[in-house]
């Protein structure tokens, strides 16, 4: 009997130990980015497509002030309210004292320089698919932006979601290196997939989430309730969005729907970004959306 108890205790310790190891923040190999230098001009395009400023500029900033990434915008969710941090190049209050590897780990793995899990309100599950060169260029561009001394306010997240190790378990469930659309037969669809699934992180709002807040990829881009509690976010699969490809591209350029209603809410920021990209990028997104299966299940 005593032996049996001993085995159970040992097993429990082993399981806890394994859990502790499995949920530990995983950094990228240190050598992965050594010797790479970023091109700020190319980084600006990545920055625009990834929509960094849309969440990290100060609340109510307009015009050029949107390039001051002082943070402070609030994002309500079922798990608490996340507050976008200062990611300007200020060394005290921003991320100016980070190295390239620190930045890459935050963006692609959701791990802070001090080795803490970041909350997935920061869409690193999408950015995990970013190309190394784009990450390096993006970092080079971010360092050219104005510094802000505004301190980052803390997130307003209660127990148990304030236990960051829990995010490690969440990542085991929901972080994947696989694309949702596994087959892309041509270069345009590949570009569209890269924009939709990685940079522009469309799935974060347009795909429903399960009980633990992970994206339900079997209902990819089929629409979801609005996380701020008001109304819903429309589905983008061809059965839900019957616009032709040209109309989708024009919406992303001008904000006008085919019946000339205009974008509202957070899509205003998204359209503002897409309008700055090449027409070929908007067409690639349209092609990707038209290639989605009805109902959102890829298989």
């Amino acid at each position, binding site marked *: 009997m005593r032996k049996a108890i001993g085995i159970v205790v040992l097993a429990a310790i082993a399981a806890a130990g394994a859990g502790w190891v499995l949920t530990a923040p995983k950094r990228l190999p240190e050598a992965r980015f050594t010797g790479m230098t970023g091109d700020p001009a190319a980084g600006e395009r990545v920055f625009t497509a990834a929509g960094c400023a849309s969440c990290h500029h100060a609340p109510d900033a307009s015009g050029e002030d949107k390039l001051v990434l002082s943070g402070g915008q609030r994002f309500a969710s079922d798990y608490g309210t996340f507050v976008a941090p200062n990611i300007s190049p200020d060394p005290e209050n921003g991320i100016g004292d980070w190295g390239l590897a620190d930045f890459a780990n935050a963006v692609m793995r959701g791990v802070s320089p001090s080795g803490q899990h970041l909350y997935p309100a920061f869409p690193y599950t999408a950015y995990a698919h970013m190309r190394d060169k784009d990450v390096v260029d993006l970092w080079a561009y971010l360092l050219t932006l104005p510094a802000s001394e505004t301190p980052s306010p803390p997130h307003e997240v209660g127990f148990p979601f304030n236990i960051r190790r829990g995010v490690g378990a969440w990542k085991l469930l929901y972080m994947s290196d696989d694309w949702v659309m596994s087959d892309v037969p041509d270069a345009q669809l590949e570009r569209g997939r890269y924009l939709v699934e990685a940079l522009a992180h469309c799935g974060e709002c347009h795909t429903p989430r399960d009980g633990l807040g992970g994206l339900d990829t079997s209902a990819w881009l089929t629409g979801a309730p609005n996380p701020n509690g008001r109304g819903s976010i429309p589905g983008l699969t061809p059965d839900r969005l019957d616009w032709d490809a040209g109309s989708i591209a024009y919406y992303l350029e001008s*904000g006008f729907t085919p019946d000339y209603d205009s974008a509202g809410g957070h899509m205003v920021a998204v359209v503002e970004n897409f309008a700055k990209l090449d027409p070929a990028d908007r067409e690639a997104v349209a092609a990707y959306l038209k290639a989605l299966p009805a109902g959102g299940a890829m298989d």
Partner: protein
Amino acid sequence: MTRLLTAVTALSLGLSGAAIAQDYSGQLKARQGQFRILAINLGTLGDMAQGKTEYDAEAAQAAADSLVAVSMIHQGPLWPEGSSEMDMDGTRAKAEIWDDWEDFGSKWSALGEAATAMQTAAAGGAEAIGPAMGALGGACKACHDSYRAPRN
């Protein structure tokens, strides 16, 4: 005595409730109608910009003129306080409009400026209409971003 007080309280509550719930259906129709006129004329111009229809100088000019005409309608009488989405059905007008009426007005003025620019651009062919549509879209979005609630 208590019963009388209760009755008086109930009556006064009922009266103030009635005072709040005014009928603004006329104002609602008017403001949604003006947006519909904008959308129809934007459609004429946008379809030309996209090459969906052939450029027609006269039709483009007429559409731009109509945009300007709508933008000249004074908005005050159409937006009485108490006609937000919190107060009545059938509207997506956020209560924030009345929190910052001045800003709401300046966004309407921005539409007027973009419409005036379109009046000039409309004569210049589909290539000139395109960027002017972008500016008009910007004016629409700027206001909808702050003052229009999401669709339910």
